[in-house]
């Protein structure tokens, strides 16, 4: 099985290049994921750098660009990929080394949407009550693992990485807007107003197409827009 992997070590390489690796068929077991293959390759060439940890799609470390599409190495079956398998860092981010990118900007936007529950009333001694129907509204939102596949697949995010919050942060914002316990709707909506923070979204839908958790940031953004309209009337 043939791989083409993006390599760049700023200490020794003048510029990035694609390196070919081959895995012998006896090294490729059925059901193997791309992350397993990268680990095999790394055991031969320890200089290959990539992030990974849980191996089951919950930690969000191993977002990479696989045959042109963003995804998680640990959830992508080798059998689903055309050869040579081309692996690159997720696009649009500063590259630290090989497949490792600098995610600071991405996390900055995440922090900027105030991703925490805001309640102004005084706290009861027991839990806040929430009906199962209200809790259902958080499904498809709270599961985000902050992998960054979506935002780094979004042209609007590439062009305005400093001003546009990006799909992941906006999905996060909606996760709190949709929470029946949260009391900061107005504040949150005001904060997203203006031409850039949210309105740079042109509904290209790349985010939704790549999300490895099957979430729909695009729909979340639409729902925020609807809330804004409601807020205005």
């Amino acid at each position: 099985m043939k791989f083409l992997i993006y390599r760049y070590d700023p200490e020794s390489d003048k510029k990035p290049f694609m390196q070919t690796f081959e895995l012998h068929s006896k090294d490729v077991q059925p059901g193997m994921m791309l992350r397993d293959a990268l680990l095999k390759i790394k055991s031969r060439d320890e200089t290959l750098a990539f992030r990974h940890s849980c191996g089951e799609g919950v930690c969000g470390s191993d977002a990479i660009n696989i045959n042109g599409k963003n995804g998680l190495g640990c959830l992508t079956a080798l059998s689903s990929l055309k050869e040579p398998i081309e692996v690159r860092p997720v696009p649009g981010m500063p590259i630290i080394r090989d497949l490792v990118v600098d995610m600071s900007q991405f996390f900055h936007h995440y922090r900027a949407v105030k991703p925490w529950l805001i309640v102004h009333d005084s706290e009861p001694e027991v839990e806040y009550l929430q009906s199962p129907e209200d809790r259902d509204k958080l499904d498809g939102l709270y599961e985000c693992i902050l992998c960054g596949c979506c935002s780094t697949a979004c042209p609007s995010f590439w062009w305005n990485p400093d001003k546009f919050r990006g799909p992941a942060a906006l999905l996060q914002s909606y996760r709190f807007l949709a929470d029946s316990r949260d009391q900061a709707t107005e504040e949150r909506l005001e904060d997203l107003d203006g031409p850039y923070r949210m309105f740079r979204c042109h509904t290209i839908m790349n985010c939704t197409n790549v999300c490895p958790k099957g979430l729909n940031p695009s729909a979340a953004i639409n729902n925020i827009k609807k809330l804004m309209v409601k807020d205005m009337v």
Partner: protein
Amino acid sequence: MSMDLPRRQFDTLVIGAGGGGLRAALQLAQADANVAVVSKVFPTRSHTVAAQGGINAALANVLPDNWHWHMYDTIKGSDYLGDQDAIEYMCRAASHLVVELEHAGVPFSRLDNGKIYQRPFGGQSQNFGGEQAARTCAAADRTGHVILHTLYQQNIRAKTHFFDEYFAIDLIRDDNGFILGVLVLEIETGEPLLIEAKTTLLATGGAGQLFRTNTNAHINTGDGLAMALRAGIPLQDMEFFQFHPTGVAGRGMLITEGARGEGGYLINKDGERFMERYAPHAKDLASRDVVSRAIFTEVKEGRGCGPDADYVLLKLDHLGKEVLDKRLPGICETSRTFLHIEPAEEPIPVYPTAHYTMGGIPTNRFGQVVVPVEQGEECIPGLYAVGECACVSVHGANRLGGNSLLDIVVFGRAAGNDIIQFLKNNRYHRKIDENSVQAALDHLHRWDKKDEGESVAGIRTDLQAVMEEYCGVFRTEEILKQGLEKVLEIEKRMEHVRLKDHSKIFNTARIEALEVENLLDLAVATVTSALARQESRGAHSRIDYPDRNDKQWLKHSLFFKEGRRLDYKPVTLQPLSVETFPPKPRVY
């Protein structure tokens, strides 16, 4: 050399951004302490994120419950090795802390009346051993994810200072025994940094990577435990390693106990619900050690499933698609992705899999690290530990499902509070011990040697295979002796291991080398402690000593790195306010 090292100073330092570290940091930040959190991965990548089934608290939202019953179950689950003062403290605090998590934003699943959803889990009973209880508070099967993300979010709000992707190498300790901070490595630049602090809290998680097949993340290499060992601090009860009954056979991903809590059960090749034979009362919801041994025995006696008869099946289809989608969406996704199995139609192949480190850095219920002295024990000034790397000990010889998420928030908070007191009494930074800094730097620079040698990856693979084969679910004197020999051989080989990659920027090979060194120290600790304990208790099952022996072994082991010495200390049988639960035969 240590003189031109960059240095930073904080009041208090937390190593680890899992649930334990973040809960402590939150307590500290909210008290306006100047707190820094160091983590080798971005905080929400910590392995707390993978916890599925839930967190225990006797909220009694579904069935009658109270903290005293929870306390009894935990002590019985621990096979009486748990310290009853710490267990009482934890179970009493549980309801308050779970409600606090809910107020902080955790999106728990809900009951029709709007309260937090609770499910039955293994080892839970009403009324001190009566009917099954439902004590585990859950957000579908993603409870760890929601707790970790919420705690991180609250820390951003409280303006905790984070060092993301910094690797802690060694504790800095002076001749008076004070811990003064930690030498860390910035992964992105490859530059070392000395972080000085009046207190250091270790919250570095477990060491599941000791075993080949495990439910843990790649990063769970027990670094904090090995740092403690190197600083001369013993590790407690390392022979007790939990094998979770239901890891995906051969691969290790966890299928939560919540699957059995929701009504799933195990069958062998004859379709027999075999747990009825091993635990007539609790059946599939017996303690984990009991279920794991049962599966192992079924397979060994030829009743395993599959072409090689080497696993059993977890049957869930009778629960129906609706329940599965609502309550267990995560494990359904995992089965589909990794096994191409639809749990609503087909059972899942499972086998006992290395899961949880019961042993760890010895602490009291305030999170202070304690070591034995001639009469009793004393604290190591400035050092704290919580979570899976600590041994407080609330889990004793066998942890109950749902008690670890509870452990990390309860003792994370307790340690935070105690640190606040310590800071009040210790206003100034002590002078740094340059020799200790140099020793830590030497440890790091050992990996700069450039001659030829064996690779790190080979050592890791061999070590994991040895641990799995020689220190698994069932043990004997002979097997453990061989295991120790093999681990010591690997230790010798380690001296000749070299890196090929000597670059600085994001050098993951160097990080892995440091991690494997840590694992190796822990393997020696685990096998040595297991070999010495001549009884069967909780997760430590000796075929040659099949019974629990309270006369000789109702005590905690302490392993010291120097000379591979073992010491022992008594179990605290005296709770805080209620009566002792004296050891009884343990049946489920």
